[in-house]
């Protein structure tokens, strides 16, 4: 159980995240939606502690995450894998090494400096890649891959961390519709298959509704909606997105039934 208690983060005068409280049960697929600048990324990054909160607490199974330091903090980061919009792979390293970086936390310093990965770790990384049909790319430089392939590598890196939680910050925002579906399906598979909780920032309401079992709507740093997708009426969407709501909602219904639509971006 992930519990967030009146979490806040300010940048100067601006409150990027303002008094947010949430609790996320294990195994859920939670979508975080809201217009640009609503504070979605900041919220996710604070959970991984890539960004320090300026107030409030994060608890995981009763343990205070916001107080962690040193090795304990790194262990927590390994427990909540992060997936980024820009993939954040090391372009000059090969795909397998990029995936194996997910094992760094569990590898001794001397071994990792010499890149002496254990056979089990290698097997794990290759299996993860093969599961997403990119096992044959293991020896290629990450930067030579397409965006969709790179994001799958990033998902594999997240998987080999054996995380309890996956935080995905707009994982499909730089992908085309076909790769969007591949990546979102991969996240869903991880969620269903391994029971890993997924928290996913999304710009597209259509996608959010077809993949998530719970939606958290943010506006100006606050949570303004928190319920199952079916409850997201046009009225709520208008509150979330302001004038753009019409555009965002348009074609929403058959998008859900078709499973996928090119993401209308609420920028």
């Amino acid at each position, binding site marked *: 159980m992930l519990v967030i208690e009146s979490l806040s983060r300010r940048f100067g005068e601006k409150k990027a995240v303002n008094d947010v409280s949430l609790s996320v049960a294990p195994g859920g697929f939670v979508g975080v939606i809201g217009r640009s600048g609503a504070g979605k990324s900041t919220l996710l990054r604070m959970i*991984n502690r890539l960004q320090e909160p300026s107030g409030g607490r994060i608890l995981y199974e009763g343990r205070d995450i916001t107080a962690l330091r040193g090795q304990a903090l790194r*262990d927590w980061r390994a427990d909540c894998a992060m997936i980024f919009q820009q993939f954040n792979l*090391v372009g*000059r390293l090969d795909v397998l090494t990029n995936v194996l970086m997910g094992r*760094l936390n569990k590898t001794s310093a001397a071994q990792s400096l010499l890149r002496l990965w254990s056979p089990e770790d290698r097997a794990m990384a290759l299996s993860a890649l093969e599961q997403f049909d990119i096992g044959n790319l293991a020896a290629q430089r990450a930067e030579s891959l397409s965006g969709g392939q790179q994001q799958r590598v990033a998902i594999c890196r997240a998987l080999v961390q054996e995380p309890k939680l996956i935080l995905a910050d707009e994982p499909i925002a730089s992908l085309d519709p076909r790769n969007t579906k591949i990546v979102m399906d991969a996240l869903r598979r991880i969620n269903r298959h391994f029971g890993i909780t997924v928290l996913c920032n999304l710009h597209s309401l259509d996608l959010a509704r077809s993949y998530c079992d719970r939606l958290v709507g943010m506006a100006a740093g606050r949570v303004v909606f928190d319920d199952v997708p079916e409850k997201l009426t046009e009225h709520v969407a208008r509150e979330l997105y302001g004038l753009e709501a019409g555009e965002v909602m348009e074609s929403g219904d058959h998008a859900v039934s078709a499973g996928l639509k090119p993401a209308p971006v609420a920028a």
Partner: protein
Amino acid sequence: MTARHPAGRQLFGYGMSSSLPTLPDAQLAPLLEAYKCARAAKLRQTALFFVALTLAVIVSAKVAEIDLFKLGANIGSFFNYFSRLFVFDSGDLQGRSVLLDIGEWYWGFRKWLRLLGDTLLIAYVGTFIGALGAFLICFSGARNLSPNPWVRGVAKRALEFFRTVPEIVFALIFVIAFGLGPIPGVLALSLHTFGALGKQFLEVVENIDMRPVEGATACGASWVDSIRFAVVPQVLSNFVSYTLLRFEINVRGASVMGFVGAGGIGQDLIEAIRKFYYTDVSAILLMIIATVMIVDIATAHVRHRLIGLEEAR
């Protein structure tokens, strides 16, 4: 076509004819006027700059007691020295060109070659140690990687210090401390290289793409691990390139280390200069120049290969 009227649109219009339409005079005149004013202002600035420069030269010559007339009168002896470098001043061929007896000119070839070898070795070891130190410290000095401003400040100031003190000064100090020989030369070059390369490395590190670093941090990698995996692959080719460049600079630096007794060819060169062995001076100088050129060509070749590899990736 209505060339003159909506001038702005016509200028870049799609169906433009072959001659470029001009603006009406009324619109053109102020633009031309503004351009002329701006040009005139620039010219005035340039003229002012040269006047100031000339004045500064005259004033500084006065202050430093440089007599320009004396310089002119004695310029002859400067060239005289150079012509004497290539003429034997004793023996059978006294007063004749050195080219007539290369063997006699390069009588000390084996010894000088060995000393040049020492010089290269001093430069090599000095560069290696300095680069190693620079590599180890540059990450702690980089703004984007080192969170602690104190650590950063100390690293930067240390590099500044070692970069500012000329290597020959370090050599003098170490000769006093360790005695004559190549060790002080190596130490002096290492320290200066440490400062100079450290600064360059640090700037390379500050310009990396931070996203891979964030990716590594987010999956629980330690600071050292994230540098090993997310930073080093990005900076390594630049580091090697800067180090090769520094090696070439250090070969030149090492050849004067002997001036203060810190090993290498410089010892024989300064002796030849002091004792007016003109032909020895020219013989040694030419060997140093040839060596530097060879090193320059070789390192440039390797560096271009590296850059080529970078671009071909």
